[in-house]
């Protein structure tokens, strides 16, 4: 394997890890609340705008701004679920779809009004730096973003496995009736879960702002990407989201390198179709 190809695969893995965190939020929300967040990418784009604003106006590095943005997004997600989405949970899926798509359209046009049509990118002082690791050249920004993404994802997994609230949320996901019988406050736990999902989006958005520029059409693109990742990895599976992100990141690189760069996105969709045909529940999704 040539060094150039190895460099590209490393780039794909690192970028895929950041995508994973965004998709993780979608997976968590669906896995527990059973609502498909069609405004997921738009929320990510809002977090990217927030990171850009903090970097531009307060000179705050997105890596440092990430916890703040995740916290604010948690609050927004919590309130959104309690105030709006909760009343749609028992309603037909097409009504949930219309609600979330409406939210997405409002966010896209709101960002167009607030930030204009231009692309906004965060310039960090180390934006052009690379690490030499043997023969490999590793982009510093991607490495730091991927490391932060992985740390956030692992912390989330530990939270769900070890904490009382995390276990309660998993109980809601596994057996809703049982959770109600033992007296869990399901409404609150759903709101917390939605908040956690949007916190993932906040963290991922902050990290993505260092990798790609944000403009209003970025939101719908990211929604589509998040869907590809979670469907490939397995909707509702946290490790599936991580695997899906890396798989899509690497596959895009390989398609671009061996075939044609213009075919990168097409290759992701091809993988999606293959997975839907061969294993509809996703690579790590359980049969239900």
């Amino acid at each position, binding site marked *: 394997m040539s060094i150039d190809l190895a460099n590209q695969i490393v*780039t794909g893995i690192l970028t895929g890890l950041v995508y994973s965190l965004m998709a993780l939020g979608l997976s968590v929300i669906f896995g527990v609340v059973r609502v498909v967040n069609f405004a997921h990418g738009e929320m990510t784009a809002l977090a990217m705008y927030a990171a850009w604003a903090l970097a531009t106006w307060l000179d705050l590095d997105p890596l440092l701004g990430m916890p703040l943005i995740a916290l604010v997004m948690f609050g927004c997600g919590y309130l959104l679920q309690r105030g709006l989405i909760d009343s749609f949970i028992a309603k037909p899926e097409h009504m949930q779809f219309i609600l979330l798509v409406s939210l997405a359209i409002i966010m896209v046009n709101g960002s*167009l009004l607030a930030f204009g049509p231009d692309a906004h990118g965060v310039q960090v002082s180390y934006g052009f730096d690379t690490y030499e690791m043997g023969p490999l050249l590793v*982009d510093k920004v991607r490495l730091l973003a991927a490391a932060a993404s992985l740390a956030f994802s692992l912390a989330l997994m530990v939270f769900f496995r070890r904490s009382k609230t995390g276990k309660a949320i998993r109980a809601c996901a596994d057996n809703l009736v049982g959770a109600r019988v033992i007296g869990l406050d399901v409404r609150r736990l759903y709101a917390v879960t939605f908040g956690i999902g949007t916190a993932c989006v906040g963290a991922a958005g902050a990290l993505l702002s260092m*990798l790609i520029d944000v403009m209003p059409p970025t939101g719908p693109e990211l929604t589509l990407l998040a869907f590809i990742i979670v469907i490939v990895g397995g909707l509702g599976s946290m490790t599936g989201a991580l695997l899906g992100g890396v798989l899509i990141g690497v596959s895009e690189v390989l398609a671009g*390198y061996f075939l044609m*760069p*213009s075919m990168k996105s097409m290759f992701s969709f091809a993988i999606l179709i293959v997975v839907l045909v061969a294993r509809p529940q996703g690579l790590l999704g359980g049969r239900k």
Partner: protein
Amino acid sequence: MPVSRFPFVSRRDFLAGTAAGAAALGVGGSLRPARAAQPLKVGLLLPLSGSLAREGQSCKRGADVTPALMADLGMPVQLMIADTETNLDTARTRAEKLIADGAEVLIGAFESAQTLAVAQVCEQRGVPLVINIAAAPNITEQGFKTVFRNFPTAPRLVTEGLALMKEMFKTSGTTPSKAVFMHNNDTFGTAMAGAVGKLFPTLEMPFPIVETISYDGAARDLAVEVGKAKATGADLLILVAHGEDSIKVIREMVKQRFEPKAVVSPGSPGMYEVQFYKTLGKYADYSLTNLPWINPHTKMSQALLTAFGKAYPDALFEMNVGFTFEAILIAADAARRAGSTNPKALLDVLPTTNIADHVMIGGPIVFDAKGQNTNTRSATIQNFGGRPKVVFPAEAAEARVVFPAPGWQQRG
């Protein structure tokens, strides 16, 4: 000296100076108004939002300062500006609406596919379209009777761009051994790629193109594309990009330490735009673009530069400004010569346009039977300290070309 810092020339000077070229403005015409002061209603279609918003806004800045200059020449115009949203369908519907609202001539639309859509509307409605910027050759190959383009076609851009490259190698005494060609896969980029593929073998270039890499300009990043280009071992990168993707390409080149002797565009936007300089800083320097550029030595260009500098002190004067100004000039000149603002009257006189005194480098603005101005000429501009400077042709040069460019890490 940056092109935007020419000595102050007032609108009065502009009028007086341009009067000297009055005979050239119109076929044997005079600069005195030949018609009533009824302004020509000009429908201007530009991508003011969407992925080409930056370029569209740049064109609009050129348009904004033009009516006052036209009024000084006794050719009043009233602009009706519409946003195509960088969308083909929107461009078509906005063109329909402008005509319905009374536009007597349309100007636009910066991007080739949108321009073609607008051209079809104009042809159906019998309203002239003066193209400010759009390079796809098929626009003027379809037998349209209402389309007039004051911008070179992609093959012409490529032919002149490659010829200027040869001149640069000769002057610098350094010739690259092989090149890699990267291009955006939109209508413009594909047309340029087609022209490069067809013309390159015929121009006896002193290096081969070892690989052509087509990419999606809307891709989230271009890491793999640049990695693939680096893997070819080429020491020259020929790039056809737009604003956003040219930034992505250079950013990845720095990160991946891909250091060819130069990055040179045979005639695409991107590497001479404000955002390119702002985002990339020192890494924006030494990039080369071969394209039509403003001729700093005409009275009219000095007046335009002065007006532009006053209205937009922080903006950069780009090719988009000059061509948008000239498109309006062509329409206004037609109305003056026709003595009417009626679209049919304009269509009668537009084929005989002959404007010697204008702002861009090149001969008089005249149209061939297809409505194409064949007198446009390209220059080579190179970035120095966050500004583009003309390095070729020699008679318009503002600085000496630097080739090969210093490596990324060797820049202060």
